[in-house]
């Protein structure tokens, strides 16, 4: 696997939070499945480290953007399942629009035609 691993420093903290919230939008997930989902959706480009994922999950839980409960997974494993809260959805939509603004702005800079000095 020659995928690029995005370390804690590379993946901005806020970005990971947005990714987690977005993932949970489609339904409750547990830690491992969130990680797998982000990986497959980004075509193996974004590989979240365990060491970043769990602090982020617990931080979001503390901020009441997501909620957690122990349940049993499809293959009978006891897992801690996370679910997005109403506050989490609101934050997600805020962050999303900001992200889009930002990427439009960056794209504008990157795609600008080169003007010669002369």
């Amino acid at each position, binding site marked *: 696997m020659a995928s690029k691993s995005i370390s804690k420093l590379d993946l901005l903290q806020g970005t990971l939070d947005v990714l987690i919230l977005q993932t949970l939008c489609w339904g409750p997930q*547990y*830690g*491992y499945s969130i990680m*797998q989902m982000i990986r497959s959706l980004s075509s193996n480009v974004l590989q979240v*480290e*365990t*060491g*970043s994922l*769990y*602090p982020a999950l*617990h*931080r979001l839980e*503390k901020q009441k953007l997501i909620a957690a409960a122990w349940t049993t997974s499809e*293959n009978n*494993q*006891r*897992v*801690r399942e996370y679910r997005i809260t109403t506050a989490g959805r609101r934050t997600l939509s805020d962050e999303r629009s900001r992200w889009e603004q930002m990427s439009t702005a960056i794209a504008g800079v990157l795609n600008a035609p080169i003007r010669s000095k002369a």
Partner: protein
Amino acid sequence: MSFFGWKSRKDRRAELDEELRTHLALDVTTRVSRGDALADAELAAKKEFGNLPRFRAETEESWGGLWLEHAIQDLRYALRGLARSPGFTVTVALTFALGVGANAAVFSIVEPLLLRTPPGLVDPGQLHRIYHGNAGDVGQNFSGASYSGMRDALAGLASVAPRLTTDSATLVTNGLTIDVRREYATAGYLPLLTGPATVGRYFTADEGDARAPLPRAVLSHAFWQTAFGGDRNVVGRELRIGDGSFTVVGVAAPGFAGLDVTPVNVWTTAPHFARTPEPWYQWANKKFGTLILRETGAADHREVANRATIAWHQTNFANAGADSLRAILLGSIIEGRGPGASRELRVSARLAGVAFIDLLVACANIATLALVRAARRRREIAVRVALGVRRGRLVRQLLAETMLLAGIGAVAAVAIAAWGGTALRTMLMPETAFPDGVLTPALFVSIALLSVVAGILSGLAPAIQNSRPDLTQSLKEGSRTGRIAGSRMRSMLLVGQSALSVVLIVGAGLFIRSLARLNAVDIGVDASRTIIVGLRPAVRGEEQLSAVMNELADRTRALPGVERVTLATSGPFLFWNTRDAFLPGSDTSVSLGGELPAVIGADSTFFSALGLRMLRGRPIRASDRVGDAPVVVVTESLARTAWPSGDALGQCLIPFERGGRCYTVVGVTNDFHQWAVVESPRMRYILSIDQMPQPRPGASQMYVRANPEVADAITAQVHTLVREIMPTARVMWLARLSHALESELRPWRVGAGLFIALGVLALMVATIGVYSVLAYSLSQRVREMGVRIALGAGAGEVHRLVLWDGLRTVMVGAAVGLVLALALGRLVASLLYGVSARDPITMAVSVLVLLGAGAVAGLLPAWRASRVDPVVALRAE
């Protein structure tokens, strides 16, 4: 364990571990299902999983609530640090303990007297004690006429009730004798102060306020519970209280136990008022007690005081001239806060201030020690900062050490407060029975608060100072040399300590000088040899009285060790019998400062028994009998007032009535005090009992002159004789005069003792501070000393250098302290005797004492500095 969603840190950690284990297991399962071998899958999963402890810590941090965890860590760290330096730990903890303990001990005496409202009062805010005063001179005794006058003048604005005397009596019930505290009361007193009676009722006007009060009693709720088991049938019972029999009419409202700190057990009416010719509420010349006033609704303070003042002036016939400038003042119902607070109380209030100064000195000293200690640990701190410990955390860590020490100190402070508070109570106020012990919840709260405040005060500054070390400097140069961090703060703290020490030493000095002045006061009579015996025999007629008194005098005279016995109608420390005395042709009596003279009817041994000195002429002789020429002996102040320019001998003085018989002055004796060590001169004239005009009181006062070595034993023997010869007599006072005076001198004596103790404590603490700073700065300058010595500096020069270093700071402190002492002087001025609060000698001596202490603190470091071996010092780098 989980309560309402709250989980302990341990449970959450276990949950997190489970979550992570699941994660790992799921990863392995996925890999195996993709076709990896189990062993490879496990290895790969673990590798990808990463550094477990690190991100577990990070996750935990996101839970919050870490401060508690950190606090525990900080305390553990502090504990380890302290265990490494037991000397520092013991010194600082002890300093905290002494500082906080001294405050708590003083608090235990001040709190019940100054801060606690007497229990069981209804709307205590409306209640006032009434005083009459002019500037600092305050009194609170009123006559019956003044009471009635003020009551009528204030009708509608306020209610007034007289407060009579309190005494200790024995109460006999069912053959059981109990010592009780009894307060005499009129009908209006109890209803004015407290709620309705628990059982029965209070005194009616017929019982309590009548011309001749009926013998009735009301029990306090607490006493009723303990002595009568809360028996409601106690109402109607006859109790023998003191020398009378009283019928119980009720039990007071719960909680109420009078207005003093010592709880009252029983209130009785005052049947003895019936003995006087006119009803008590018309007494114009006799003062019976104090007054309590309750304002009704929205009464205006000033209006009440003004009306009361006018009414008082109209009724205060006895002393109208002298009191014309005095006004009525409304004071707090808490006696200690009123203008007429006792000297003991005022001393203890000052002691509270002194103890607090002590605590400040202690804090400054601990801060100094902590600064020095932290400076020694500069390298350690620098390493911690370099490793990324945040500043706030570092401040907390450094503060934790001081707080921990304050906590240890607080535990010891409880012991010091328990011991010191008890000692203080018995030393300063042996007559006050405090209702509860020293260790009250309020005391624990105050110790806890003081310790926290002291911990923060002394720990915060050093912690902040040391949490920002100059990294490169500290790491490079180590702990031996380099800029001395916080040296300015250290000097300031030293100056502060020295200054406050000077203030306390000045205070102690002023008290010592006052005491010396007091001890030197000549009260005119021989206190150590005199036993005073004041009796009120229950006998009728002059003949019967003189029979029993003579028997007592004769039998006392026969006791071994007794030198002289005399009987008199009145006399010093027993009875002041004011009687006019006229000069021929004058309409008004001689008077001094508005005060009339007093008469004493005495026999020929009076002068020698009391140790009076004849300044002129002769004393009264046994030969001065009824039929002989009437003679009088006057005191020095009377002689000077009546005949300012001439010789008193041979002059004529007319006692009692204008135009009466002329008594020839045959002698002048020295002035002697009437009631106290501190009093202004009073005039007296002494007649032979036989020649005294009517009406004259019986000679029921006895003075015994005894060998001082056996005087205590004789006092007890006289007591037995009195019991035997006149079992029904009331003993007003029977004591050695020197003992009677002792209680007056006690506030000064105890005040001096405690000021000295607290001053010495502060001085010691300050000395330790100076010493530790000198020792530290010397350890920083070992190389410098080595160089100096190598270059030929003698031991004397090195000594001077180090000593001067310490003395410079101390001298600045002394100057600041002097200014402070001068400014604070007026706070103690009213407690001093014969010495100014700005007494230059005391100031000078105090400064010298401080400088001496500073020099002592510098001696050891100076000696050590001169012994530095240059070779070792220079090579040590």
